[in-house]
């Protein structure tokens, strides 16, 4: 394995691992405080139990997220020292702010997890909110830094280095808002729906289980609206990509030729050698319409770019199809669930809905991984789009396959253990029925 590929693989693996824990760390605190608030308002102790148990799971996930995030902050330099040497001064600012947001999150999570008996209920709930808000801000700042890599602003590039650095302008990259919105919604949608799915499964057998019914309702309250809004935010992101990273858009859509009235391709398999995308369902003028709000607009194909500037087209196109496909499915399920809830019907009486929720449970995380593949692989061969190539940024250290394999094995073990611990915890869920609880 060449060192550049090993470095990219290690970075991708580390990010792909961390992102799951980071998303849970953003969204779970909201679920916890909603459950706790319901307990405080109604006196229904099952909600308190729910907050306790969710907090316990969150503690594990947060810890793994914290340490895997630390690994990433070092890996920026361990793998991409030249990138950090040039970009550190430009985009370090959001990372600094993230440092403080994460600090606040860690502090109040400690208070929340260990403080149930030490502080007043009001203070405890407030600590939960502090975790939720600072967790969201942590994510926002990190994504702002990533947005800069896609649409870099706030400097001039003269003779191979950045001058006239303006860190504030760098944070205001045009990609920042769409990416932040898309990622934040993704955290709530994916986490909300995975929790909903986990609690929907036992409800198929025990529809009167009071614990899982309450859990499902809180999880959907957070996850379903986010999943429903996500396609709109995705549209915003895609239009930004069309404007700032036309080569990435062409790869996402499998668009090889530059044409007016370009079709939207659903599915399909790009053949880079032949320069065409096969087996796709083509919606005439769809891409021009979606990307530029004009069915006759010209869309640049990959042919407009020199071959060395192409991202890996097949990976990007397939990942994009996966994200859009599963994301749309999540939006539909969420719409159905919200419709049932808004009519004050019982979700558990619709077994098809419970089953679909179980099916949709892992989709949010799959979408997220696919979405990051689109973002990161789609930016290749650039690490800073248009300015610095990934190959220029990599460390001179040889043998990078070794750390790649070591960290991959480490994370594989951690992933299995975490999954096992959470599985055991779900198995121990209370069996109280609504009739017992009443």
């Amino acid at each position, binding site marked *: 394995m060449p060192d550049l590929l090993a470095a990219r693989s290690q970075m991708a693996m580390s990010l792909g691992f961390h992102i799951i824990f980071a998303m849970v760390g953003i969204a779970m605190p909201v679920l916890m405080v909603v459950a706790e608030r319901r307990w405080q308002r109604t006196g229904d102790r099952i909600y308190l139990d729910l907050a306790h148990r969710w907090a316990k799971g969150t503690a594990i996930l947060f810890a793994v997220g914290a340490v895997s995030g630390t690994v990433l902050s070092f890996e920026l330099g361990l793998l991409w020292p030249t990138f950090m040497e040039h970009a550190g001064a430009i985009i370090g600012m959001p990372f600094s702010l993230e440092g403080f947001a994460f600090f606040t999150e860690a502090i109040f999570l*400690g208070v929340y997890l260990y403080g149930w*008996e030490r502080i007043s209920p009001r203070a405890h709930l407030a600590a939960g909110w502090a975790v939720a808000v600072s967790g969201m801000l942590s994510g926002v700042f990190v994504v702002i830094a990533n947005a800069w890599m896609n649409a870099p602003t706030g400097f001039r590039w003269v003779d191979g280095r950045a001058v006239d650095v303006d860190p504030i302008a760098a944070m205001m990259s045009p990609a920042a808002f769409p990416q932040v919105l898309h990622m934040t919604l993704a955290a709530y949608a994916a986490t909300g729906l995975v929790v909903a799915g986990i609690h929907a499964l036992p409800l198929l057998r025990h529809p009167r289980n009071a614990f899982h019914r309450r859990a499902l309702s809180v999880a959907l309250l957070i996850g379903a609206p986010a999943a429903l809004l996500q396609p709109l935010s995705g549209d915003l992101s895609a239009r930004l990509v069309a404007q700032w990273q036309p080569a990435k858009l062409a790869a996402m859509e499998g668009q090889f030729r530059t044409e007016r009235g370009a079709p939207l391709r659903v599915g399909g398999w790009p053949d880079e050698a032949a320069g065409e995308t096969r087996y796709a369902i083509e919606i005439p003028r769809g891409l021009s319409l979606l990307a530029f709000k004009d069915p006759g607009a010209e869309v640049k194909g990959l042919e407009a770019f020199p071959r060395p500037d192409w991202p890996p087209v097949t990976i990007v196109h397939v990942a994009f199809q996966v994200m859009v496909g599963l994301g749309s499915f999540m939006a539909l399920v969420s719409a159905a669930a919200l419709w049932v809830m808004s009519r004050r019907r019982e979700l558990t009486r619709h077994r098809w809905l419970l089953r679909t929720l179980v099916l949709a449970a892992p989709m949010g995380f799959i979408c997220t991984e696919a979405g990051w593949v689109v973002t990161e692989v789609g930016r290749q061969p650039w690490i800073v789009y248009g300015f610095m190539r990934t190959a220029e940024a990599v460390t001179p250290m040889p043998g990078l396959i070794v750390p790649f394999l070591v960290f991959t094995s480490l994370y594989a073990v951690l992933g299995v253990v975490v999954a096992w611990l959470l599985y055991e915890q779900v198995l121990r869920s209370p069996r109280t029925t609504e009739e017992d609880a009443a």
Partner: protein
Amino acid sequence: MTAALGPAELVAGCALVALTAYVLLGGADFGGGVWDLLASGPRRRQQRALVAEAIGPIWEANHVWLIIVVVLLFTCFPAAFARLAVTLHIPLSLMLIGIVLRGSAFTFRSHYGAGHGEESGDAAGTTERWGRVFAIASAGTPVLLGLCVGALAGGALPAPGGRTGFYATFVAPWLTPFGLGVGVLTLALFAFLAAVYLTVEVQDDDLREDFRRRALYAAVVVFVAAFGTLGLALLEAPLMGRGLITGPWAPALHAATGAAAVTALWALWRRRYRLARVAAAGQVSLILWGWALAQYPYLIPPDLTIRAAAAPRVTLVLVLWGLAAGALVLFPSLIYLLRVFKREPAGPRA
């Protein structure tokens, strides 16, 4: 050396403060793991439980100081960060593995372990295994951190382009007797801090005596390691060694460090634990600052100064403002955290 202090020096000072906080707080959490590893005697279980209780609510917050240091380094001194990341790739990666294993194993153990009343015999075995991972990672990580600091302080990290060969470029700079000495010293300091802190936090008298004895042993190890490292510095890292001996501030600093060390020992001996805690923290901070002063104005001796490595002024100034704003949120929150969990007596609210 310029007389005036600019924003670069200010940020470097802030990074030193953050590193000091990491050593005093996060370091003690690693030290707690060392005492888990070395738990012995009739109260072995209670010793481990005390360590877990002491670090449980706070280790993640304490850990963030390290992230602050790294972020300040790559934002404000990107050239230095890049060089460290290249030449110290191997020990930093190993340290990260230690950090990951320590944190994960601790959490796995504490959330499904003793005292939570839900484990069966099988789960108890698993808990024990994660406890071992936690303890071993806690002991190994500080040595690796010290190795990296030793390589930096020893002036062994010139720009990577100048050398040829894998060993010469990526191993030799950090695998030195001086580096190992700093690694051992770091481990001893962390264990010392943890034992001293635990004497204040513990409620049970026998257990307190256990940790008092451990603190005293650790103080002796610190003493030996500190002088051994100084000797190695004079032999191998003359820049650092000379700085520590001949700097204009050196006599005053060494006198203060010595006074803090003696006070800590005396206070432990006389069972004045709060005083011992303050003195121990002072002693460790002074050792850290001695290192920083000895290599000032270099960020990476012998050739990269703080100024030369610094980011553009606008970045430094913005980060300083960011630090000020962040501190306004951070310090009240931290004080709140410590007040909730570290007030004495440490028992839960009635």
